[in-house]
């Protein structure tokens, strides 16, 4: 059991095999960490989960019919994100829609996987993540996604912050609040599609929510929260891949565990800080 979880005997030989996954992990950490800063405030945590299930369905269908899995994943993601974006800002409408969509996407995805004649390991990778699945074209696709997401985030960061803080005042000052919300949900869809490739659809939240939540426990700075969020996502992703390598298990339990531990530590630190202030 222990050996199955942590076995580092052939480590130096294994690392080159997962080099692509490590690069992909780093890219994911960057986009997940940045996008995550706005996910909680905009009440999109649940939507992330819904998007990831549809992203999974898209990937599984494309796998079945012999098309590119990343493209399928992006198509599924953007379809879900697009519908969510046009449903508008009201979390209540959105949540019921996501709750309806999620099992449907998951069901379609599982159906497609069940019909797929290939190896079983490839199948569950889309749900639970896998480390050796990132070939060069996939990495290139993820790099393109990362470039788009980070590029657009840098451009819209300030008005998106304003719109997230106070949509009424932002709109009065000339921010196109609704358009920005749509752009952000589409970026979120792209980020989810990229994340599904490595951590799997079920655990995307560990990358898109937990690091930012941890960062917000520790800082209120417009600079440090995104920096910490990306750093935490990076530690979780790259650390998770390196640990998974030792055991030959899916990477997601490692990624989610590290991510969760960081969150616990952040909570303890913020609790100790507020206690220190009061004492």
């Amino acid at each position, binding site marked *: 059991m222990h050996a199955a979880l942590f076995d580092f005997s052939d480590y130096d030989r294994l690392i080159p095999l997962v080099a692509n996954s490590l690069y992909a992990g780093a890219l994911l950490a960057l986009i997940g960490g940045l996008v995550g*800063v*706005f996910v*909680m*405030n905009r009440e999109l945590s649940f939507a992330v989960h819904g998007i990831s299930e549809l992203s999974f369905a898209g990937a599984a269908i494309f796998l079945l019919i012999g098309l590119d899995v990343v493209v399928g994943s992006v198509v599924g993601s953007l379809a879900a994100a697009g519908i969510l974006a046009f449903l508008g800002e009201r979390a209540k409408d959105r949540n019921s829609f996501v709750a309806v969509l999620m099992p449907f996407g998951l069901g379609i995805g599982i159906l497609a996987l069940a019909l797929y004649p290939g190896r079983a390991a490839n199948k569950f990778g889309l749900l639970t993540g896998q480390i050796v699945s990132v070939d060069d074209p996939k990495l290139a696709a993820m790099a393109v996604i990362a470039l788009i997401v980070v590029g657009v985030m*840098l*451009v*819209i*960061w*300030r*008005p998106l*912050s*304003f719109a*997230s*803080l*106070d949509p*009424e*005042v*932002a*709109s*009065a*000052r*000339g*921010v196109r609040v609704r358009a920005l919300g749509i752009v952000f949900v589409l970026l979120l869809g792209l980020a989810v599609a990229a994340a599904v490739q490595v951590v799997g659809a079920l655990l995307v939240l560990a990358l898109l929510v937990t690091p930012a*939540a941890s*960062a*917000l426990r520790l*800082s*209120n*700075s*417009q*600079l*440090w*929260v*995104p920096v910490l969020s990306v750093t935490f996502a990076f530690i979780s992703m790259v650390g998770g891949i390196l640990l998974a390598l030792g055991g030959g298990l899916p990477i997601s339990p490692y990624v989610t565990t590290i991510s969760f531990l960081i969150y616990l530590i952040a909570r303890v630190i913020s609790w100790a800080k507020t206690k220190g202030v009061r004492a």
Partner: protein
Amino acid sequence: MGSVLKVANASLAFGEQAIWSDLNFEVQPGEFIAIIGANGSGKSMLLKSILGQQALTSGSIELLGKKAGFGSRKIGYIPQHRILGTDLPLRVIDAVRFGLDGHKFGLPIPSKSMKSQAMRALEAVDAEHLADKPVGQLSGGEMQRVRVAQAVISKPSLVLADEPLSALDLHHQGVVSELIHAQASEQKAAVLFVTHDVNPIIDYVDRVLYLAQGNYSIGTPDEVLRSEVLSKLYGSEIDVVRNQGRVVVLGTHDHNHHQDEEWS
């Protein structure tokens, strides 16, 4: 000097339902106007039209001689209090700075001049001690104080305040009203102040715009807040009672609002 705002024959209707029609008034620089009326009388819609967020059915609104459009830099806006900014890495000073450049694309890169302008705006509303506080941790009174700073930092010609006192206790209603008045008069900005209750601002009000049943009446408080004027507006018996400087409007079924009603 021309008027700040000119509303000419402005009408707003949703389908068959007229909200208000043939609204005509002008606002002079530095004027403080209270907008009063029942729920659904279109008070907030009037502000939205001035902000270019709600198209008129007919008529026109001119701001400083030009057609009022979306995102005017000449307007400062203060909405009613709502809890904001939980789960966002924003401090008070960042929020105030948004009043200057929040609409611009890019990153909020620190800038000395922006910071000192934001600090001065906070000092003007006695809120410099809040500068580094997370926005999500402000009380209602603090939040509205900060919003006054945010609204006037860009030196607007017109301040639109949409129920800025709702959900505040009496003490803070007084403080925030006084701040809005003081800041606006210092910058010679006109104020349109939407409120259910004219009393917290009665000392500052130059004119009252009263909206009811699609009709309106505008004039000094003494001209408008009278039983016969309001009875005519509502088309039913209204009593205006004045007692020790306070004005109470009876019989409208909307004089007695609870604070939590205002959230819808």
